[in-house]
């Protein structure tokens, strides 16, 4: 692999962590979030500030994970009071609020962002390996979660909140747990991103980015780890494949998002299980 491919693969790895983390919230627990990029951003800004203060890399990444998770829990406490469509719009509000606040803060670099983030001190392939390691860890974690008792409880909450409540599940606690885990992992992804680009601006973590992450989950098939990972790889690499029609890239992206929802709302996962069924039948 050349340097370009390595850098591309690192980007894919970061997005896999992000998509898998959103899948915990949206896929497992059924809570639509249109503001996931805000937590990605919180992680990135935490890491950027701390690393410029001279903290070592592993501590800053841990801090990014924690800070995003803590803020995520607070926002979850507030926003999970509302359901479905309300929640979608409140989390969208979180996306705009994050960018709106960061843009105006002098110590966060305002509109210009933070540059000159210290190097991670590894070779490029080494960093790629680190990112991939974290990506695999988060995939394994969500796979383990899905099979655990908690995973079944999440399923119940996503499928039918009322019935889950009748069964004695503490709906709020489960939603909040999913939210806290998802946002913390997004914070970690943000930290990895900060070391990867060494330069961050507020607009990277805006509403569009949140939609991008959600679309990875939706195209992959909400709740399916395998589908989400494949969809993430495809969607991140798509602009590279379609470089020759650069002008129509976003148009194609919109059309793709729309068509998947219109014709195959189960996403890639639904498509695969259809293929498997046909083979068996």
């Amino acid at each position, binding site marked *: 692999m050349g340097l370009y491919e390595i850098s591309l693969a690192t980007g894919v790895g970061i997005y896999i962590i992000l998509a898998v983390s959103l899948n915990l919230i949206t896929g497992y627990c059924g809570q639509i979030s249109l503001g996931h990029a805000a937590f990605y951003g919180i992680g990135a800004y935490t890491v950027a500030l701390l690393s410029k203060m001279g903290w070592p890399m592993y501590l800053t990444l841990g801090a990014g994970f924690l800070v995003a998770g803590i803020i995520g829990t607070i926002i979850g406490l507030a926003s999970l009071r509302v359901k479905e469509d309300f929640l*979608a719009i409140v989390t969208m509000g979180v996306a705009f609020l994050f960018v709106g606040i960061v843009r105006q803060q002098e110590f966060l670099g305002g509109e210009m962002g933070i540059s000159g983030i210290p190097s991670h001190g590894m070779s490029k392939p080494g960093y790629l390996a680190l990112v991939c390691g974290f990506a695999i860890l988060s995939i394994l974690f969500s796979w383990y979660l899905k099979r655990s008792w908690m995973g079944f409880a999440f399923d119940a909450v996503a499928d039918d909140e009322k019935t889950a409540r009748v069964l004695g599940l503490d709906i709020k606690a489960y939603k909040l747990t999913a939210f806290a885990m998802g946002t913390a992992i997004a914070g970690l992804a943000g930290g990895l991103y900060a070391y990867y680009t060494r330069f961050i601006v507020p607009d990277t973590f805006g509403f569009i980015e949140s939609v991008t992450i959600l679309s990875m989950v939706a195209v992959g098939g909400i709740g399916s780890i395998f589908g989400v990972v494949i969809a993430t790889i495809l969607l991140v690499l798509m602009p590279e494949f379609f470089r020759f029609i650069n002008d129509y890239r976003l148009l194609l992206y919109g059309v793709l998002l729309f068509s998947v929802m219109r014709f195959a709302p189960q996403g890639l996962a639904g498509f695969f299980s259809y293929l498997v069924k046909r083979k068996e039948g």
Partner: protein
Amino acid sequence: MLFIELFIQGLIQGSTYAIIAVGLTLVYGLLRVLHVAHAGLFTLGAYLGVAVTNQTGSLSLGILVAALAAGIVGMGIYRLVYEPMLNKPPYVALIASIGLYIGMEELFRLVFGPFGLSFSSAPLQTVVVVFGIHLRACQIIAVVTNVVLLGGLAWVAQKTRIGTGWRATVDDPQMSACFGIDPIKVRYRVFFAGSALAAVAGVLVALLTNLVEPTMGAVPSYKSLAIIVLGGLGNVMGTLIASLILGIIEAFGTIYIGDFLDRDAIAFAFLIIVLMIKPTGLFTSR
């Protein structure tokens, strides 16, 4: 003086939000769909309005063409996009709508170019002084148009048979179908009316800023989503009041807390605070 001036700016902005948001809230009330692509119709209206006005020199013709065309496209969106998705989980239509909006934005960029479109000679820019406050004619026209259109909509909804049918279908679709109201026809009409209103808002905003860009719909429409939640999803009167409140809060907020929060975030900060206190929005949803 600053106080009154800000208040009036707020009302102008708020009435524009109102006319965009009312279409969204009608669609939500009827279908329970968050119609993000509404912003695309707003932008479409603005482009058509400016293009027709530049060609023919008549602003009223521009507004009319914009409203009709956007109305028809709106009905098309209902038929081709939302109708097949109504029995799917709500996120399906939401994400499809976002995808559609991204596609529309790009289409505008490809067709009309990335730099936007302006009136070749912008009409109604003369400054009028009312009680010592300087207003441009187009600002007054915008507010008057918005009030007239919303009044007209209220009249149709309250006093005519068609309006009764709308309200009945929103309240209880099955029961109203039993009484011989065709719910499909109602949906088409709502999409036509809502989209036409958004298009008029687009032309009016173009008049105020004299610039139409592919992305001009994004921020107003996201704010309109916040507004319809504030107004109690599906509640038309609540939506109108919430629009005006938001317009005014933004006008004052930009001056007094602009150093801490940028303008676009104020709406959402307000939304989140309100929802923390009252999770159903300012007014009860239907």
